[in-house]
């Protein structure tokens, strides 16, 4: 593959840009249609209770109310586990999370739903539904939930591991372990050993657009769903399983999406809207309020992590051990597995022991959030690495060069790395002017400044994608693909197709299609779309090229082998005067055999993991505990950057979210298991007023596994920030914070304790 690209690496204006900035782009809440009903969900006020009775008679009697549904309107799937693209899902848990069955397991869990002629009537109707509960004691802390005496969320949950089957139920859903070498022996001979315990809080993805779904159950038994989702095909699959429908009877139309970050993969409203539409025979629209998003969707887990690391006197890491316990929320499935795989993934360590536990608690069932599991883990391990560097008086970036993972390094969980870019990111960070810029304390004595660094890793994934591309008579190409566009991917896919064909990005018109209009596509998640759907676009381009060559050969009455295709120009090798540009030949297709359509369906291997190293300067007000970010640089191994602006945007967005995670964001609970800050007023996310411009450095180590060298870039930038900020705070005030968020109250308390 040529390294001199014409389209890849440029910055064309995004195809959806005009619609997005003029407000014409259509989101799920914009759906309007004749006869549309409005739905509202009644949610549990209790964190843990048995459901004794639901009486909706008064609600049904309210004028304007047309239907009420409960879990009785969804078939009971039993304990079936289905592979739904990104991983295995227990359908009983998914169904119970959609509408509670038997028990409620968190405040905010959906109980019943009403469809009415207006949203206000639906809301009033919800207040008329009488639910009898038998309250049960909640448990909302991961370590408390692991105790034998803890209230049990599920009587039928037994710890799953590859070890001996468990004999009694527990709140510990899963146990993983990874082991290399002999950590006990290695710790005994280490020159320095540091062991610390860390706590992190539940944090939400904070996407700006709440969940929404509109469903129309047609008279012929087919269902159309319009929704905000990271994966139309996974919505189709989940709804099919939950409503016992064949996938062929369901069409899912993905609307434009206002953020997802992993939180819009599991269904919440879609099956409920469909069930209400089935009962009423009319389209039904459901949207969530912000409080419902906080309390009724899938945040990322809080956690307890203990890390112990040892190094020899020269600064070589010799041993590392970690214990990770992640809150899964109401149902099993926290990302403790990936967290346990990532925690030491940046380093080459010969002796490692990692234990990970997935633990249910009375909080919303957790979902993925950008590199799920890795941020919590890196906060712990990168803080301990920083302390080791300080003890040994070694520069933190030099330490990472010495110990960093490389091609051939064996990870703690077993596999060996292929070509990776960890060392390149560290060296690029060390060379960056930020690293050596003077950091002076401001004149006011109460403001202290410090600089910190941290690194992080994320796997990225591949999975399945399909695309078709049809050549128009004017030389443009329509690209139909099925990956919801969260970060500019429709343009990056158009660019890859354009590069393959030798035309411009503007000559490709990409569109994101519904599930009836394109072949199967897995979710937009796992940083996979530019890699996998890009590969599908590339292969569709190769298919078009082959057919264009055949067509030119037909026109010139030669064999296809006698036709060359280079940079968008077809030429007859036997008579060089015979040539067509792509556009010229496109104009002749109708009269020479018809239009040309290229297609591809891929499930590629060759996924490249990504590394990042971040540098941050902070200023701590020791009188208030407030931490300000003065300067931030994100260095990342991005493979080949297809559209550098979108890569930079992913890095900046991930860093901003990681900073919010570090400094302010947390779910606050009272002793009854009620979230007390379910609004953006009190759940404090960073705004543009809180952050400086985040500088980005794109280190391009092409992924040898992709035609254009693509690595996923969207997730790893959220991994380093909490640790980088913690390390900077330490250098500012001499106190290490081991709990997230490092909010002003916590920082002040830590300062006062010294």
């Amino acid at each position, binding site marked *: 593959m040529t390294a001199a690209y014409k389209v890849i690496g440029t910055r064309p204006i995004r195809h959806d840009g005009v619609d997005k900035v003029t407000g014409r782009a259509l989101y799920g809440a914009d759906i309007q249609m004749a006869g549309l009903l409005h739905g509202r969900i009644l949610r549990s006020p209790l964190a843990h209770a048995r459901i004794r009775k639901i009486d909706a008679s008064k609600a049904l009697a309210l004028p304007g109310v047309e239907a009420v549904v409960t879990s009785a309107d969804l078939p009971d799937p039993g304990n079936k586990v289905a592979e739904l693209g990104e*991983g295995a899902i227990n359908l009983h848990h998914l169904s119970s999370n959609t509408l509670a069955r038997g028990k409620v397991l968190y405040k905010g869990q959906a109980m019943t739903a009403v469809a009415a002629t207006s949203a206000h009537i639906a809301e009033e109707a919800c207040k008329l539904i009488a639910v009898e509960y038998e309250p049960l004691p909640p448990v909302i802390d991961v370590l408390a939930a692991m105790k034998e005496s803890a209230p049990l969320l599920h009587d039928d949950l037994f710890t799953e*591991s*590859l070890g*001996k089957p468990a004999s009694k139920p527990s709140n510990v859903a899963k146990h993983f372990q990874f082991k290399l070498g002999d950590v006990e022996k290695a710790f005994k001979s280490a020159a320095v050993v540091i062991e610390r315990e860390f706590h992190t809080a539940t944090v939400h993805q904070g996407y700006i657009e709440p969940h929404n779904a509109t469903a129309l159950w047609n008279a012929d038994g087919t269902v159309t769903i319009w929704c905000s989702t990271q994966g139309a095909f996974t919505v189709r699959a989940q709804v099919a399983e939950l409503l016992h429908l064949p996938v062929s009877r369901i069409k899912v139309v993905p609307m434009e999406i206002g953020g997802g970050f992993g939180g819009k993969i599991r269904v919440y409203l879609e099956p409920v809207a469909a069930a209400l539409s089935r009962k009423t025979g009319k389209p039904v629209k459901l949207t969530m309020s912000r409080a419902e998003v906080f309390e009724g969707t899938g945040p990322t887990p809080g956690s307890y992590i203990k890390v112990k690391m040892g190094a020899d006197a020269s600064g070589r890491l010799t041993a590392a051990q970690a214990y990770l316990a992640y809150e899964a929320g109401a149902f099993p499935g926290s990302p403790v597995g990936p967290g346990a795989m990532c925690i030491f993934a940046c380093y080459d360590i010969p002796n490692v022991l990692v234990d990970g536990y997935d633990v249910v608690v009375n909080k919303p069932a957790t979902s993925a*959030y950008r590199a799920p599991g890795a941020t919590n883990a890196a906060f712990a391990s990168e803080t301990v690495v920083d302390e080791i560097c300080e003890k040994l008086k070694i520069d933190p970036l030099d330490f990472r060069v010495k110990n960093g993972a490389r091609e051939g390094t064996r990870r703690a969980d077993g*596999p*060996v790395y292929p070509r990776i870019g960890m060392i390149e990111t560290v060296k690029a960070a060390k060379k960056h002017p930020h690293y050596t810029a003077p950091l002076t304390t401001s004149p006011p004595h109460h403001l202290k400044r410090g600089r910190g660094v941290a690194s992080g890793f994320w796997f990225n*994934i591949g999975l399945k994608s399909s695309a078709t591309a049809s050549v128009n008579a004017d030389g443009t190409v329509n690209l139909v693909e099925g990956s919801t566009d969260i970060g500019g991917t429709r343009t990056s896919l158009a660019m890859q197709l354009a590069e393959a064909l030798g035309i411009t990005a503007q000559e490709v018109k990409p569109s994101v299609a519904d599930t009836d209009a394109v072949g199967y596509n897995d979710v937009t998640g796992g*940083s996979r779309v530019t890699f996998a759907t890009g590969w599908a676009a590339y292969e569709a381009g190769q298919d078009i090229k082959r057919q264009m060559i055949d067509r030119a050969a037909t026109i010139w009455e030669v064999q296809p082998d006698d036709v060359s295709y280079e940079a968008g120009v077809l030429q007859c090798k036997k008579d060089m005067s015979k040539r067509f540009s792509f556009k010229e030949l496109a104009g002749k297709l109708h009269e020479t055999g018809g239009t040309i359509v290229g297609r591809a369906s891929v499930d590629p291997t060759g996924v490249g993991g990504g590394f990042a190293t971040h540098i941050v300067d902070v200023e701590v007000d020791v009188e208030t505990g407030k931490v300000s970010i003065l300067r931030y640089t994100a260095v990342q191994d991005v493979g080949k950057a297809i559209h550098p602006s979108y890569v930079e945007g992913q890095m900046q967005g991930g860093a901003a979210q990681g900073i919010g995670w570090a400094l302010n964001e947390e779910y606050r609970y009272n002793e009854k298991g009620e979230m007390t800050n379910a609004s953006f007023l009190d759940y404090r996310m960073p705004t543009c007023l809180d952050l400086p411009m985040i500088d980005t450095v794109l280190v391009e180590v092409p992924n040898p596994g992709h035609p254009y060298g693509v690595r996923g870039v969207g997730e790893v930038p959220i991994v380093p920030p909490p640790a980088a900020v913690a390390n900077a705070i330490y250098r500012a005030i001499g106190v290490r914070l081991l709990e997230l968020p490092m909010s002003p109250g916590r920082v002040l308390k830590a300062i006062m304790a010294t």
Partner: protein
Amino acid sequence: MPIVYIPPLLRELAHGQDTLTVPGKTVGQVVEALEQSYPGIKARLCDGDSLRPGLALVVDTEVSRQGLRHPLTDRSEVHFLPQVSGG
């Protein structure tokens, strides 16, 4: 012959060994061979003819998309790991 990295929690069943050289041209054949020598190991890794839900198969440096049908060479490394999705 392919090398199978035995997950730590399964090593008790495999007589404490962390790696085993096991004959087989596919992962499925390797699992059957493991079961012959260490009865009970297949039930921990598989659910019928498939990998257990929640488990991923990594062969050399790649997450396998073919499960038990994944072909192996004499130098293949086989790992059983938690599934990784993404956000």
